[in-house]
């Protein structure tokens, strides 16, 4: 990656220093967001008995929690675009705490749906997205490593939350446990406190003005020259009208960048990921029941999941390091597609695994593949859209993925019930993921080629006479400057530079 070209953020990210504290905070937030719904299932039996309800009714709690956590993505994005990561995460932590504490005093299942499902889910949503966003603001050179480390928080938290939940339940019953879990979730506020704001603050703008102070008079010159060259002021008026229209769209786009739907890389990522999530979570959900089905006892079946978590824990930072190496980073999209296809291949081979040792081997490879995909999930999106537009991108992606994530396990369950055999579920998941991986691979090859073409065209333009270029540039600069102010100034103008950065990356190797 070229380090001399400024990133599309408008400043050079520190790539270290306080960034590592931010990674630590992010891993806590991400860990809670992904593992809390899973670890919550321990309370199901007790709640079922107390409220006299069926399993499917109680399972709605985690479904609502997951749906809100992923579906609340756009809300997170809008809030982060407006207020920055830190206040949003702290507020999210507070919401989680309030949700669980009020759940401790619930007297009906509906109240539980609201307190645990909705409020806590919303709090988790406000934790997850901002944590991932702020990594993109603090890291560029070492971003894959930072992402890998932050996502590694998820298996670590799972290994600690699950036994902790059991301990709390044995000692305090379910009401006391909810109360204490509320306090534990408040630790997300600590993670949020670590997210020191960074970016185009007023101070740095001032510095830039001091440094580039001499350029300003130049721009004014071009502006004035343009006005002089236009015969009448009518165009200026029409321009103001256009300004107002654009103002509306730009206002919405300032909060949530819908123009991303025209972004080629974003669309490729979205379609590929939506397909992938259909088969991503189902095997984990059904691994233990499948093991019990072929005759393995409960504890060994649970141990399979522990093996998965441990391998996952190691795989994520390791993938981050590999993805950061100079051979892989420019082609990170290929690496991502490969890991998805690898995941799919594991599932396709699972039915061939016989007996406990076969399943252990499957768990190890599955843990490896799962960790690889998760570590690069957000890194690849950042790579495609650039760190500045990532805020909106992540929100839009999560709300679309929300549907398939929720559909995955129930579809798997229906397949198992229809055929009475687990192997068709594994085959379906494997096939879907191999398809997704191949799709991403081919489309990203196409995308890289298009980016290279655009880079060539831009370089061709640069060789044109300079006057024409400065006029064009000046006009576009003027438009953008009058229409926005604040943090959007830098990102939108530098989006082209951002593309340049990525293309430079591909061209370097």
């Amino acid at each position, binding site marked *: 990656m070229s380090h001399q070209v400024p990133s599309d953020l408008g400043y050079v990210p520190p790539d270290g220093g306080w960034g590592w504290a931010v990674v630590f905070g992010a891993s806590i937030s991400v860990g809670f967001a992904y593992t809390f719904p899973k670890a919550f299932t321990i309370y199901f039996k007790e709640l079922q*008995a*107390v409220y*006299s309800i069926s399993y499917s009714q109680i399972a709605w709690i985690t479904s609502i929690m997951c749906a809100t956590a992923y579906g609340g993505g756009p809300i997170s994005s809008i809030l982060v675009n407006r207020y920055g990561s830190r206040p949003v995460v702290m507020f999210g932590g507070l919401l989680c705490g309030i949700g669980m504490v009020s759940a401790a005093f619930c007297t009906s299942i509906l109240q539980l749906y609201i307190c645990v499902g909705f409020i806590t889910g919303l709090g988790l949503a406000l934790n997850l997205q901002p944590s991932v966003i702020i990594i993109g603001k603090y890291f560029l050179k070492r971003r894959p490593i930072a992402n890998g480390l932050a996502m590694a928080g998820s298996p670590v938290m799972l290994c600690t939350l699950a036994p902790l939940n059991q301990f709390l339940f*044995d*000692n*305090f*019953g379910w*009401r*006391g*446990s909810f*109360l*204490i879990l*509320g*306090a*534990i979730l*408040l*630790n997300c*506020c*600590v993670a949020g*406190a*670590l997210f*020191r704001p960074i970016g185009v603050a007023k101070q740095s703008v001032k510095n830039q003005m*001091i440094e580039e102070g001499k350029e300003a*008079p130049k721009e004014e*010159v071009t502006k*004035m020259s343009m006005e002089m060259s236009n015969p009448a002021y009518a165009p200026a008026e029409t321009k103001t009208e256009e300004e107002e229209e654009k103002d509306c769209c730009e206002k919405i786009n300032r909060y949530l960048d819908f123009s991303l739907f025209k972004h080629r890389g974003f669309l490729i990522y979205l379609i590929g990921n939506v397909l992938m999530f259909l088969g991503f979570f189902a095997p984990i959900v059904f691994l233990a029941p499948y093991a019990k089905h072929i005759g393995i006892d409960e504890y060994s079946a649970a141990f399979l999941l522990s093996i998965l978590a441990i391998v996952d824990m190691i795989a994520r930072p390791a993938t981050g390091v590999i993805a950061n190496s100079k051979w892989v980073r420019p082609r990170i999209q290929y690496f991502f597609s490969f890991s998805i296809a690898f995941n799919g291949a594991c599932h396709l081979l699972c039915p061939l695994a016989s007996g406990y040792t076969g399943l252990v081997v499957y768990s190890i490879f599955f843990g490896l593949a799962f960790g690889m995909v998760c570590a690069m999930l957000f890194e690849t999106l950042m790579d495609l859209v650039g760190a500045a537009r990532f805020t909106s991108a992540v929100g839009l992606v999560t709300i679309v993925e929300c549907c398939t994530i929720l559909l995955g396990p129930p579809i798997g369950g229906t397949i198992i019930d229809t055929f009475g055999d687990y192997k068709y579920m594994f085959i379906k998941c494997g096939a879907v993921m191999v398809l997704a991986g191949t799709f991403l691979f081919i489309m990203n090859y196409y995308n890289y080629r298009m980016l290279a073409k655009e880079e060539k065209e831009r370089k061709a333009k640069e060789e044109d006479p300079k006057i024409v270029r400065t006029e064009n540039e000046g006009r576009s600069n003027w438009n953008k400057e009058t229409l926005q102010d604040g943090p959007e100034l830098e990102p939108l103008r530098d989006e082209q530079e951002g593309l340049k950065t990525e293309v430079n990356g591909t061209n370097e190797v």
Partner: protein
Amino acid sequence: MTTEDASQTQGNLTQMPTRLNESSTEPMTTTRIVNRQTRESISDHSPVGHGVSTPGPDLTTQDFKQAIEEKASNFTYVEYEILLSGVSGTSKEKNITLDNPAKVELSCRLASKYPHLNIVQVAWKRGNETIKHINKTENSWSIQLTVTDENELGSYSCTLKGEEEFKAVFHLQVPKIEGKEKPIISYDGDSVVMICKSSSYTPITWTWYLTNGSEQIAINDSLMSDKYVIDRVPANTTHLKILKLTKKDDGAYWCEAVFKLGKSKGKLKLKVLTFMVPLKPFLVILAEVIILVAIVFLYEVYSKKKEKHAEDEKEFEQVEQLKSEESNGVESSSTRHRKV
């Protein structure tokens, strides 16, 4: 499957294979026919013979084989066998669960790899009482019992004495009810549900007891219906719901399942806590969160002050530089403006 089939089965009693593994499906169909017959004659609970013939948790060792059940007169008929092949002196044990009256045949068989041993003495005993046995085959001996009430349950042992001594013990018991080892935790003013399950045997009735000192008092839910609610759905589980808990409800509870051949109890423990108990860890963690957040913010303010101090010094230097530059370049910039 009609009653005629069943009577045919009855006729073929002796020809039915007596040694069957758990995996074969034949005995299962026979069992069903038999069940329909026996249901009319004995009790109205379905898994009567079924429960006995399906392999329960006890029947996992390799050195015994279990027979299918066959119908004879009014009772279900079961056979159990222990294969003796181990080291001399060790005794093999087997637990047999019976919930309804049955005719039981217990046999001890010597493995065929010991043909050279001359078994001189074979004794079947229940405690000190000797039971007359029959020599079923060349190297197996058995006794037949009719178990009608709990007096006939207990431990029956066979001893084979010869060059080496072998012993096997059969324990005939009612189904065990498992309680919970870990206490169930609940809070003042809350309600709790305690569940007892009987896995494959359906008891005739369930009774709940609470412990008052050293006594066990039966819980009458119709008498104290605002405090206790007893539910029995499905038939082999029972739910005791206790409302408006107080400290006094703390203690041990027993759920008792009554079978034809006896009763069986399971123990559950209830602990009633006040809300102060979880509140303490909650406040501790809350304090920790507040302290950590304060530390992070204070550190940030401190490091910003340091930075600002360093920046101020830099700016001061820069301003001085600019001043000197301006004084040199002021003429050139003014000419530029004039041009436009």
